[in-house]
């Protein structure tokens, strides 16, 4: 049988999506809930691959977009929780606002604490969901246009994004009366859409996340195949050449930066549904760096590879973490895996898979006749 690269790439996606959709047949609810969180991390891996691998923009603050998405929906779900409705006022109000309120302050979102009116529109769940995408995209657009118009690149982008995520984290922690500071938003209600309740331990939540991941993977893969996706990769390789061909480079970079932010914001929302909390730890530097490690190990030039990298690392970690001694060793292993991937396996695990794919294609092509063609360029998958 003749094999083609495209065929094998498609097969990899089909197999992966089939596996995640079939997981509920094998796992119990506890594991399914865990797995759904890892799928969310896989989505983050894909977002990193898009910006790091395809755009050449190493964002060390991806957690900012994830966190904004998480907080946006968590605000809505907080107001939808039973405790928020039982604070003795006609309209819902988060319990922590009462704990932090000045004596005698009215128990109303309008004026219980300074800025609490910002919560008012989040009483509508659709607003929280909308903001979960809009906020990360607006922030990414502003940040992206400034950075890319000023032709900032490489390590300077990493430093700026890193600084911004730490700044926003600080603001959230500082605004304790408004955000519950370090403790984050807990005790949330379930998201309910058209009477369907997304309890994190019910299969519908798992399926929502698994199907979302499948769509994000397919969508991202198709996006990088478009002309714009090709031009983006061209800009990554040589932005000056692209500019002199007539492309408005900052627009391309900013557009894909926003797409990556939107995916991350969406992932943040799904994570809140699976874990029932939002916390400033989402904007910890270590979390954003961990995402980069997933993509490096899985393969930053591959949307699916980076996603699988995130899944694999988290699954191994979950297994290992049951033994405390192993957990310490695991941190070292992860560090070494990152260094190894950067030094010796720049295409990550996906690179190995692509070599295998190319070997299979070459072998199947060689069957009738000997191959006299030059080595083909690696395509990305």
């Amino acid at each position, binding site marked *: 049988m003749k094999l083609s690269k495209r065929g094998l790439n498609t097969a990899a996606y089909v197999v992966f999506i089939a596996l995640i959709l079939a997981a509920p047949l094998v796992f119990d609810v506890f594991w399914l809930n865990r797995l759904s969180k890892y799928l969310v991390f896989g989505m983050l891996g894909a977002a990193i691959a898009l910006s790091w691998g395809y755009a050449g923009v190493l964002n060390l603050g991806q957690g900012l977009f994830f966190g904004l998405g998480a907080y946006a929906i968590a605000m809505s779900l907080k107001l939808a929780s039973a405790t928020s409705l039982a604070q003795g006022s006609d309209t819902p109000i988060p319990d922590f606002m009462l704990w932090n309120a000045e004596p005698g302050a009215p128990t109303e979102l309008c004026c219980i604490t300074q800025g609490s009116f910002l919560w008012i529109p989040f009483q509508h769940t659709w607003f929280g969901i909308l903001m979960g995408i809009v906020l990360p995209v607006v922030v990414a657009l502003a940040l992206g246009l400034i950075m890319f118009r000023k032709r900032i690149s490489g390590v300077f982008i990493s430093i700026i994004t890193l600084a911004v995520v730490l700044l926003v984290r600080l603001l959230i922690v500082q605004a304790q009366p408004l955000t519950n500071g370090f403790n984050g938003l807990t005790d949330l209600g379930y998201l309910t859409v058209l009477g369907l309740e997304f309890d994190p331990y019910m299969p519908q939540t798992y399926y929502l996340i698994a199907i979302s991941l499948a769509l994000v993977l397919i969508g991202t893969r198709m996006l990088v195949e478009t002309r*714009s996706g*090709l031009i983006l990769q061209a800009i990554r390789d040589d932005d*000056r050449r692209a500019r002199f061909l007539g492309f*408005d480079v900052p627009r391309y970079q900013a557009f894909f930066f926003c797409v990556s932010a939107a995916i991350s914001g969406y992932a943040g929302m799904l994570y809140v549904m699976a874990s029932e909390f939002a916390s400033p730890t989402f904007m910890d530097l270590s979390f954003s760096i961990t995402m980069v490690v997933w993509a490096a190990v899985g393969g930053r030039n591959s949307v699916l590879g980076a996603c699988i990298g995130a899944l694999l690392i988290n699954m191994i970690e979950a297994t290992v973490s049951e033994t405390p001694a192993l957990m310490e060793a695991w941190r070292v292993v992860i560090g070494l895996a990152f260094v190894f991937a950067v030094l010796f396996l720049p295409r990550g695990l996906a690179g190995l898979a692509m070599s295998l794919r190319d070997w299979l294609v070459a072998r199947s092509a060689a069957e009738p006749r000997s191959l006299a063609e*030059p080595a*083909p360029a690696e395509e990305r998958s």
Partner: protein
Amino acid sequence: MPSTLIGADPASAALTLDGLTVDFAGFRAVDTVSTVIESGELRVLLGANGAGKTTLMDLVSGKTRPTTGRVFLGDIEITGLEEHRIAQAGLGRKFQIPSVFRDLSVRRNLEVASCRNPGVFANLRLGFSLAQTRRVEEILAVVGLESKQEVEAGSLSHGETQWLELGMLMAQDPKVILLDEPTAGMTEAETMKTAAIIKAMRGRHTIVVVEHDMAFVREIASRITVMHLGRILAEGPIAEIETNPDVRAAYLGSKGIQ
């Protein structure tokens, strides 16, 4: 049209430089350069190292803003526009150090260059038109990279990289093309092949080329402009330039044109 160049026929001028000057902290790398390049012309720019040839191309293509002076592409003024706007107006440029998209295949490089519409939203679609594909194939044949079309551009030899970049300019299809030392570092055989490629581009584009190799210049040139210390020293057909005493003194030394 620029006042200093009355007499030039605006209908046939492809590129007009009018008193182009740039000051780098007091140092005039390009000093009041004025010239008209006719539509369809192939102009060679000669000059010793440091004469200001690359800087002149930077001024025309938008990499550097001129201190004074103006640039017209046809009858559109492009002075001081951003690089991509100038490119969209119909100017293509090849750099002295070849630059291609290293991680994309040779074919992809040409396809990217052939995307006429520059907008990110307009390009959110899959595949290329039949006309584009056909043109890419023609170009692959002209630059002789058909057998390497699926190879990553980063793994091409130096000569092949230069030819790919020429091919990308053909795919971009601008009215005016600036080539900065396209044969630098090439073997004699490669130089001759490059001359053939540039000749093939000639009918379709107006070309300005910086070149030192006199065999190459004799092979392709119609008119020559000689630059010295940022100024135009002489301009004319090759026979005239070769016998010009100023040129001999300033640029060619005692040896004359080889």
